[in-house]
């Protein structure tokens, strides 16, 4: 905590001008940050929503399959439901790892340069 940037509400940084923002937005460095975020988050979002909708549709239209008993009273539907929990935990962990490794360093470099007024 102490090594991080000080809480933003107590210390106001200089807010860069619109021209500076536009220049950064068009820079290759920012383009790379944008691409690292979008190329990870967008397909993954489509992926987990599809996976979830598959579960919803199977529940609706594949009752026999979902009702198949696997062991004891545990059926496919139940396992499918639990799998949704597991994939949610997994994706959250995966995204956070990606963000810490690929997004945070780039974002911080740009931020400190812009706020430093270089």
């Amino acid at each position, binding site marked *: 905590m102490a090594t991080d940037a000080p*809480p933003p509400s107590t210390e106001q940084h200089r807010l860069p001008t619109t021209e500076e*923002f536009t220049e950064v937005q068009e820079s290759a460095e920012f383009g790379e940050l944008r691409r690292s975020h979008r190329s990870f988050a967008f397909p993954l979002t489509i992926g987990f929503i599809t996976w979830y909708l598959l579960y919803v549709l199977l529940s609706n239209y594949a009752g026999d399959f979902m009702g198949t008993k696997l062991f004891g009273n545990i059926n496919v539907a139940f396992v499918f439901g639990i799998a949704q929990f597991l994939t949610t935990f997994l994706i959250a962990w995966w995204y956070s790892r990606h963000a810490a490794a690929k*997004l945070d360093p780039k974002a911080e470099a740009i931020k400190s340069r812009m706020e430093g007024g270089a």
Partner: protein
Amino acid sequence: MSIAQQSVLAASEASEHRPLIISLFAVFVVATLVITIWAGRQTKDAADFYAGGRQFSAFQNGLAVSGDYMSAASFLGIAGAIAIFGYDGFLYSIGFLVAWLVALLLVAEPLRNSGRYTMGDVLAYRMRQRPVRTAAGTSTIVVSIFYLLAQMAGAGVLVSLLLGITSDLGKVAIVALVGVLMIVYVSIGGMKGTTWVQMVKAVLLISGTLLITFLVLLKFNFNISDLLGSAAENSGKGAAFLEPGLNYGATGTSKLDFISLGIALVLGTAGLPHILIRFYTVPNAKAARKSVNWAIGIIGGFYLMTIALGFGAAALISQEEIIASNPSGNTAAPLLALHLGGVDSAWGAVLLATISAVAFATILAVVAGLTLASSSSFAHDIYANVIRKGKATEKEEMKAARWATVFIGIVSIALGALARDLNVAGLVALAFAVAASANLPTILYSLFWKKFTTQGALWSIYGGLIVAVGLVLFSPVVSGAPKAMFPGVDFAWFPLKNPGIISIPFGFLMGWLGTVLSKEEPDTGKYAELEVRSLTGTGAH
């Protein structure tokens, strides 16, 4: 012994221990009021009031987010839906959880980086301020009031079970009490007080749920298959109870309703204003991300336990008793606590009282979060930026927020009395549908679509909002069905209970259409600011 007698027995057993129940309620109320007053003294400026001073840690906020999110719908509603419909009730848990990924991957961090106090800050960032802020404020208040309605219904139901209050006057009095408390929490404690109340509630709710889950599993020697088997058998529906379809499988229309609900749940969370403003309470976007991760862990664990709660209730209590107590199953969780302890024993009464107090705490904390979101948006978006055109002082803005709190409290008390017999999870799903139709498209377009214009933003907010609310109005939720708000009349021509399948694509479509038909050019300079800020945190408050 007839079912009616059994149920009366349960209620009278409960009312014998009324002093205990009331004391537990009172302890929670007093404790939270102390917190509120303490927090009120620490609240000096607008950043304190709206954003709790932005000094909460990621874990604290994760806990508070969980406390804000696990509402009466999650606790009473899902347990009840599973207890009555078996597997079909489980969809709520899954949708409510998966939805967090949308918030994590696309919304939480950019919002924290570029906004200040409200959802409207981000929506209006690159647009003409006054019209977009008016729209954002309107939709924030509408979504929050839908959500409030569900919590109020839960409060009324709970208290009538516990205190044996069956008269309408008694229920209205309880709803009014909840309303007054929430006005006090929010207007005095602001975001700081609300956050602490939500943290305390999250800890209570998780502990209470752990206890009941443990007791249920103990009965079945920790064999989940046995638990499910007993639930199926005791429900009288056999294996079908464990398969999809009991609630939604009957007809083509009801299957469509299931899809509609599923879509609304997964896309709603990231558009809920009372959840979004929680991300302003941490110092930066990284902490916002971490708090979502904590929330996903806590909420996921909780929803896994609702499986034990719902199927446990189905296994240990007769269907007739669950339905006699509340037609939508909203009281299944407290009844389960009573049965686990033993209907005629003091232990049973203690458990019932504890779980009920937890449910009561749950409702109060969520209601406070919702009230804060809507009064913040009124004061910051509509009063300060539209009515006063940005010239209001912080003091005036906070004063407006406090008055808005009182007003919203009164409105929700009035509406709460109307929605008593609806399943609270179903009601919350409507709030999700409205949020996903009006807010989510606008948030995503604003953050990620360069060409998005003011007209696009207005069309997506109002288009999504009007269609979602309009379809609900003409759905079986409001009229034309036995459990409707107005069962005596029938003006329902829209067959689905949840409008999401129509209104969400409509919201997205209108945002696109409004933009391509727009005569004005998008403000590219402002978008450069928003995009760079949202991804890097430059100049974040």
